[in-house]
């Protein structure tokens, strides 16, 4: 584990007291965001997102399968994340541990609970056969704020996903259209994450800020300005005012990020 030098921690805090950050950004400012879709040919949908130096690749694969017992009329969504050793000297190989699992589940909830993917349209034969959407998040370069990079990547990948019905021709029942079709999606909520260092709330933390942060809060907002998901992480705490700050920053940045998403997916 990388030890954080006290000098560095103190410097970041000292700068924050003067309203500054180590890379010159404002507290609620994001680094440069780049979204590129259709980057993996074998995947039915894919996107590569860069936020500053953080880089995440998300691939969507489609398969046929059985629905869950308690939801026979809905397709299945499954999200997994891998913090591969490529991305950071501190990531070890092996099955996903709590950080990777939390990341996957937060992205998953953001997609699932907001009903961005219309899972009812993914039913082939109720109770028997549905489309399964696998979302795989592959972290390539870790410089902070994986939550936003992964969420944005998942949305961009899903937005350009095509269900390969033609390939599964033989397994589809008669009467079910055998042509490829785009994954049915609606307006996505955009997730924005801030961390707290002492009493300062900073959006889109870089690695140095993230490892000294006391607490973290992710807020997903939709096009109407409503809140769709939230997740607090790390062992520090937030005051009510700080939460309000994060919500406001998430709404503002969410709009900008949504524009970027539409630009890259052409929607």
């Amino acid at each position: 584990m990388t030890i954080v030098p006290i000098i560095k921690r103190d410097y970041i805090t000292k700068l924050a007291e003067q309203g500054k950050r180590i890379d010159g950004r404002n507290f609620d400012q994001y680094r440069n965001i780049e979204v590129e879709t259709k980057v993996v040919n074998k995947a039915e949908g894919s996107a590569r997102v860069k936020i500053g130096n953080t880089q995440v690749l998300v691939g969507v694969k489609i398969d046929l399968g059985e629905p869950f017992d308690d939801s026979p009329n809905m397709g299945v969504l499954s999200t997994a994340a891998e913090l591969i050793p490529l991305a950071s000297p501190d990531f070890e190989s092996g099955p996903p541990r709590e950080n990777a699992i939390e990341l996957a589940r937060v992205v998953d909830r953001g997609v699932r609970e907001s009903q961005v993917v219309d899972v009812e349209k993914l039913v082939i034969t109720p109770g028997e056969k549905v489309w399964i959407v696998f979302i795989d998040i592959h972290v390539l370069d870790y410089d902070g704020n994986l939550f936003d990079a992964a969420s944005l990547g998942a949305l961009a990948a899903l937005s350009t996903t095509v269900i390969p019905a033609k390939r599964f021709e033989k397994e589809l029942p008669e009467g079910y259209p055998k042509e490829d079709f785009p994954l049915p999606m609606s307006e996505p909520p955009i997730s924005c994450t801030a961390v707290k260092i002492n009493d300062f709330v900073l959006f889109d933390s870089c690695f140095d800020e993230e490892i000294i942060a006391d607490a973290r809060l992710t807020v997903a907002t939709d096009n109407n300005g409503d809140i769709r998901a939230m997740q607090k992480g790390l062992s520090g705490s937030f005051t009510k005012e700080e939460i309000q700050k994060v919500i406001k920053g998430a709404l503002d940045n969410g709009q900008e990020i949504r524009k970027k998403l539409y630009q890259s997916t052409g929607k």
Partner: protein
Amino acid sequence: MPNEGRQVVIPGQILGEIPALIPGRGTFVENKKIYAERLGVLNIQEKFVHIIPLKGRYEPIVGDFVIGVVEEASTSNWMVDINAPYPALLHVHEVPWEIEFADTEKYLNTGDTILAKVLSVDESKKLQITLNDRNLFKLKGGHLIEFEPSIYRRIMGKKYSMIEIIQKYTRCRIKVGKNGRIWIDGDAEGIEKVLLAISMIEREAITFGLTDRIEEFLKKDAKDVR
């Protein structure tokens, strides 16, 4: 060819033959032929050919000044991260303080930063460092950043010309560790300028005329220089 900067060489690249040339650092010999062993810049002085590395982890040499970050305090020593492939040991006898048994934490604890010197490196690369010297001490305040260790010489400059220029125009106190770490103390503006200068040196390490360009860059809205 001066217009292309210095020549970049890669592992396995042939550089010359013995006895026309004499193999130096960063080279290896097979059948009297001299080859580069790593990515770097070719340097031939008189008949000695050696490679100045462009990338690579810091490899400790006895006598090197290094900036270390304490990993843990044990009863009679500390383990210190000096950005090398191995952690370094700092023994209680190698510090200027009288330490009571198991009181090590009172003096240096996890996260503290020190300016130290490499004391010994044995055959299996076990490292020891020391703080026993007037020039060595615990660092407080300021900012700490890392740089590519192979460009240490560029940051110092010929006869320290580069580092002096940086200190002059930014009014910052700077300590450069051979192990790819720099400690900077000054006001936020000055520190920011030092960071930009270091980035520029990292990017343009193999070019000529770098010292002048850095001076140009720092002169722009520099503070009053006495």
